[in-house]
């Protein structure tokens, strides 16, 4: 009956079955699943666009605090560039630390956005619909920040353009053999294509916002919508383009974090030159990225009152995803640590002992607890996965754990080269701490502002999903069913 109804009346008017028992089942399904719970598009759009335009006191407070931290970041950067890199805690042995830790971390959390919107799109995981744009915006801002990190860390940042390939009077082109050059091309590709990908997906929603908004927002959306109308032609081209981007951006995503890992793996530093670093970093990136998306989802849900869109099912699914990634990450991590334990190469043993019983042990064990123990102990339970505070707590711990993991790899391991004379310890100083705080603030600031400027829930994808989903009755039970339209 339900399928028949969808052809005759709009999807949001699907009648309940006459049988009260079946009707109760349908009601329960609708309550649980966003894509079964169709409402008139007007109402769906209002649920997204309404809260977006209402800027409360909390928003302005957040804007001031985050903006202040961001300004501190820029000021500290200027101070550091003027004074020289010596104001940081870096030293002769540990020439990379705080900024490269941030670099790896932010590239990492930038991976989840693409994975959720591109890979899950290709695989037709419908539940991703309301999550994808928040995840993409996280990707874009995290990548923007990550892109600045190698610049912040450069000794002569005012010469950064020497690393770009363009004709110049110096007649020297950048060196394609350098992993930094690979980084530049990979991150540039990933960043620009992620932005375009996100923009393409936003277009139809901006057109919706254009019709609903007034004043400066109307003018802004009229320009941003580029004249999108939603003709069948435009939809077809958009679908094709989004498919090309999805298939194109997935290998780029894998390559980006692999290239980042090659920054380390290509060196002769013990503990770095490992061939497992590529996949290990990619999985670590997805792990921290999915955790970060969960946090962003929870914040946006609260701040923009998106309870209708972001439901238990989404947090549950993301929780499962996080658990699977935790398993995978542990597999690679164990691989990376089994070797030095087994073959006892002197310098690797030193690093291993440092983690297990040296000064770095508290960090190492905190990381293991945050990354393995707690996720494994909690995420198997549906109750924890469905409870937003609990899941956000676990996701926050994963962030802490993964940040420490990068810190251990970059800032601690690097202090132990082959010759013991050079062993050193890195202690962060105020500039790095301020800059790190500032970049975290900037990412949150970016998402906060963006979520007030563009629909952070893909309205059209949600409505499309609702159009294509229905129910199917087997015997006395009713189940959600989806239509394979493509």
């Amino acid at each position, binding site marked *: 009956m339900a399928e028949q109804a969808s052809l005759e009346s709009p999807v949001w008017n699907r009648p309940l079955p006459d049988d009260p028992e079946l009707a109760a089942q349908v009601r329960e399904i609708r309550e649980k699943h966003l894509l079964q719970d169709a409402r008139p598009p007007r109402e769906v759009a209002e649920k997204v666009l309404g809260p977006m335009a209402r800027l409360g006191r909390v928003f302005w407070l957040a804007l001031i605090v985050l903006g202040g931290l961001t300004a501190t970041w820029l000021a500290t950067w200027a101070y550091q560039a003027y*004074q*020289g*890199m*010596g104001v940081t*805690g*870096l*030293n*002769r*042995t*540990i*020439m*990379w630390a705080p900024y490269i830790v941030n670099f790896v971390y932010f590239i990492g959390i930038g991976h989840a956005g693409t994975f959720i919107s591109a890979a899950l799109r290709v695989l037709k995981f419908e539940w991703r619909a309301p999550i994808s744009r928040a995840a993409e915006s996280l990707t874009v801002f995290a990548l923007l920040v990550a892109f600045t990190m*190698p610049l912040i*860390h*450069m*000794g*002569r*940042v005012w*010469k*950064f353009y*020497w*690393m770009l390939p363009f004709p110049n009077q*110096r007649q*020297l082109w*950048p*060196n394609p*053999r*350098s*992993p*930094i*050059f690979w980084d*530049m091309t990979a991150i540039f590709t990933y960043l620009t294509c992620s932005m375009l990908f996100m923009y393409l997906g936003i277009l139809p929603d901006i057109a919706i916002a254009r019709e609903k908004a007034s004043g400066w927002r109307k003018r802004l959306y009229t320009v941003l919508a580029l004249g999108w109308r939603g003709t069948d032609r435009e939809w077809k081209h958009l679908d094709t383009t989004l498919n090309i981007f999805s298939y194109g951006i997935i290998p780029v995503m894998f390559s980006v974090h692999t290239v980042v890992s090659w*920054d380390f793996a*290509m*060196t*002769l*530093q013990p503990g770095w030159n490992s061939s497992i670093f590529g996949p290990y970093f990619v999985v670590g990136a997805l792990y921290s990225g999915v955790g970060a998306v969960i946090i962003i989802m929870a914040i946006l849900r609260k701040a923009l009152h998106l309870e209708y869109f972001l439901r238990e099912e989404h947090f549950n699914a993301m929780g499962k995803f996080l658990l699977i990634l935790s398993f995978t990450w542990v597999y690679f991590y164990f691989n990376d640590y089994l070797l030095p334990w087994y073959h006892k190469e002197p310098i690797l043993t030193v690093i291993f002992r440092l983690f297990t019983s040296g000064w770095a042990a508290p960090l190492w064990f905190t990381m293991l607890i945050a990354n393995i123990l707690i996720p494994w102990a909690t995420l198997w339970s549906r109750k924890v996965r469905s409870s937003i505070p609990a899941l956000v707590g676990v996701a926050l711990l994963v962030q802490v754990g993964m940040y420490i993991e990068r810190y251990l790899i970059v800032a601690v391991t*690097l202090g132990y*080269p*082959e*010759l*013991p*004379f*050079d062993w*050193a310890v890195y202690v962060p100083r105020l500039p790095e701490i301020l800059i790190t705080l500032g970049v975290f603030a900037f990412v949150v600031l970016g998402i906060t502002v963006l979520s007030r400027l563009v629909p952070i829930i893909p309205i059209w994808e949600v409505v499309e999903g609702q159009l294509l989903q229905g129910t199917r009755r087997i015997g006395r039970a009713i189940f959600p069913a989806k239509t394979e339209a493509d």
Partner: protein
Amino acid sequence: MSELETRLLDRGQSAAAAPKTELPSHKWTMLIDLDKCTGCNACVVACHVENNVPIRSEREVIRGHGQHWIRIERYWEGEGDAQRATFLPMLCQQCSNAPCEPVCPVYASVHSERENLNLQVYNRCVGTRFCGNNCPYRARQFNWFAPQFEGPITEMLNPDVTVRSGGVMEKCTFCVQRIRRVEEDALVEGRPLRDGEMVPACAQTCPTSAIVFGDRSDPQSQVAQRLGGQREFQVLEHLGTAPNVYYLKAGGSDGGAG
């Protein structure tokens, strides 16, 4: 103006007319006899003076910002009364397969195949410090701050050597300015280089002559003669960097270096 400089100037003026002279290639090699090293640090001072290496304050050195192109690494061996210090002068090993070179995104670290040297082009360097991380010897020195030479120290500056700016990586060059000078001397005089003519500052100042420098490709040179003995080794040979600095193991019998 010295006689030499006048000659060189003349040569420069008529360089366009003169036939192009190919400088001969060399395998510059340093040999450090650890049996002779007393850890006196004279080489460190000589290097600072010769190469305009910035002198950092005590506070900066404690923070790991000291810049020495050559340093004496001291290792303790044994326990109690039998404890002895051994010294390992560490400088850029001028690797033939230098790990610092390919990682530089701007070609600031390149190889000279003619001289078998690892070159650092200071004014190309943008300070990514990738080379410093990838040097297993940690021989590369970064200018954490712009170098400052106070008062009469500016009078010490060697005009043959650039003063590097802040944010730039630098390292031992095997006193390449001295290599140039003796090469051009020999060219002007129309003779091959003589062994022992080229002496880097550290070797020149070493009171025990622990450092020997020369062209390995000349079989008669002191370096070539002394290579190949049982005491010879290279630091971190197993990494395959093929250094051009060779060490002779300390036997510990003469009580000097232990």
